């Protein structure tokens, strides 16, 4: 037996495995008992109704996928009335992901969704900031800080800032989120990418560009997780390309206090409960008493490979 609990600020999760926003919904309850996992994270919603992006919305690219789902949303009111109550019967904390066009709108929205049943708010700042020429908030420390600061004064719920890999300033963005009062970081969202059908000459997503997710993303988001875990004191939640237990261990060793599983759930809907089981086995196998004992234990090996001892 190993202790799988992990603390994300004031929240204690029974284990560090949770879904990534947009790859989880109530329907998964028909596949496994949703209380096997550490938390529930909903698809990003906006305050108003939105249709999302044109078709096709997904395609596969050599062992990974691209999506340009966008953020279809039935709006805040509908969500609070219909979705939040669904999760009331579960123990796992409900984390809701929200998006907005301006920092003020983010704040107003955070207030509206700070209702009983919601344990934390994940802030999807990968969406375009209409006050900054459409650049995503998460591209720069300034706008990221603004969003989190305004939300911080609008709600007392924990705020998880979900960072984007589409920036050269991830450490500065992470520190800005922390300074502005974020309780945790999620590293990271999808990477902007594209595919063309070379036979037809057509782009393969209706929205032309979309987000890369799945195994191909892992080395990039793992790097971000490592960089952020060293640069901030708040917990970092790793996300990107996790499908096997080794991937989970890699993120925890790099410094993540928990991980989110996205695309892998599409490939195998039972991935998360399997990872919970395998994590326990892996800890026991290594003689580790707890998840905590593994987090951030990465070692740096500067040595040359020496001539192998074949013995």
């Amino acid at each position: 037996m190993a202790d799988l609990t992990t603390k994300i600020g004031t929240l204690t999760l029974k284990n560090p495995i949770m879904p990534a926003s947009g790859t989880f919904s109530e329907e998964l309850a028909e596949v496994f008992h949703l209380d096997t996992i550490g938390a529930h994270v909903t698809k990003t919603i906006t305050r108003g109704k939105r249709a999302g992006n044109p078709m096709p919305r997904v395609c596969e690219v050599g062992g990974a996928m691209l999506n340009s789902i966008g953020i279809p949303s039935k709006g805040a009111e509908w969500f609070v009335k219909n979705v939040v109550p669904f999760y009331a019967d579960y123990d796992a904390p409900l984390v809701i992901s929200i998006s907005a066009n301006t920092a003020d709108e983010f704040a107003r929205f955070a207030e509206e969704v700070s209702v009983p049943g919601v344990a934390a708010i994940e802030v999807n700042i990968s969406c375009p900031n209409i006050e900054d020429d459409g650049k995503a908030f998460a591209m720069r420390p300034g706008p990221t800080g603004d969003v989190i600061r305004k939300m911080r004064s609008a709600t007392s719920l924990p705020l998880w800032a979900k960072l984007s890999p589409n920036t050269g300033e991830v450490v500065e963005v992470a520190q800005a989120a922390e300074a502005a009062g974020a309780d945790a970081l999620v590293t990271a969202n999808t990477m902007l990418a594209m595919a063309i059908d070379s036979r037809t000459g057509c782009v393969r997503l209706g929205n032309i560009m979309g987000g890369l997710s799945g195994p191909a993303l892992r080395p990039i988001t793992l790097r971000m997780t490592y960089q952020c875990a060293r640069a901030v004191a708040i917990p970092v939640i790793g996300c990107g390309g996790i499908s096997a237990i080794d991937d989970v261990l890699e993120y925890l060793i790099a410094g993540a206090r928990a991980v989110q599983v996205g695309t892998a759930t599409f490939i195998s809907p039972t991935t998360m409960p399997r990872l919970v089981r395998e994590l326990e086995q892996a800890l026991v196998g290594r003689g580790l008493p707890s998840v905590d004992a593994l987090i951030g234990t990465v070692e740096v090996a500067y040595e040359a490979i020496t001539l192998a001892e074949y013995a």
Partner: protein
Amino acid sequence: MSASLCVVPDSISAGAPRPPSIHEVGARIKSHEWVNGEYRLLVLDAPASILNCEPGQFFHLLCPQTDRFQPYLRRPMSIYSFDAARGTLSFLYKVAGAGTGALAELQPGATLNIVGPLGKGFEIRPEWQRPLLLARGVGLATLAPLARECARLDRPLTAVCSARSPELLMSTDLFRSYGAEVITVTDAEGNSGVESLTTLIERLIRSRGIDAFFTCGSARLMRMLQEMGARHGIVGQVALEQQMACGIGMCQACVRPFRRETGAVNLRVCREGPVFDLQEVL
């Protein structure tokens, strides 16, 4: 697609722990044969847990990695037949691209990972006493369990089966074995066009008293039935396809627009479908 479309269904299944109804299982391949130059019939040994199916439902198949093909996402396939007593589940599929190409390489004895049963199947309403089924291509697979259900419910069925050529007509013997009247049309014989079919089906409506349409496999034929249905006041259902990622309802990849009282709504083909009201399809 306008931003005013609603994008998630209005009803959400009631909350709280229930026993799982969707299963991810490894099923052994019992047999796997070509039925013609394009389609293969895949028969699996399946556990009872996944054989509580409705006609029109589908499974999501994890096609293998092979040297030639490396599919990543799962591939949706309609149930061609399911038999809880014998413990078998089968699919009739066209070898198209990477996914079905890889699938086609699997040998009997191998294990295939499948998720299901998924989606909402056909509903044969009590007032639908004299149904007509119009199938083309893959629709000949998707509509097979419906024909069996019509037999079970004692509704005399007329099955109009269309294909490019007579060799590609599949399932007709199966339809006949369920007691259906089978009428075949093919491009090769020149009797599968919308005009010929309109004449044929108008005649069947009059002579057989058709009161419901079921269709799958052709957008053109679906539009034709929508139009005839509207004209004659005949309702019905259609099984649709859309590219999918999750197959379960999580990702919103598979939405299509439908006409509802409140206006157009985007519904998930994997969840609210794949079977929809014929007249609601936009």
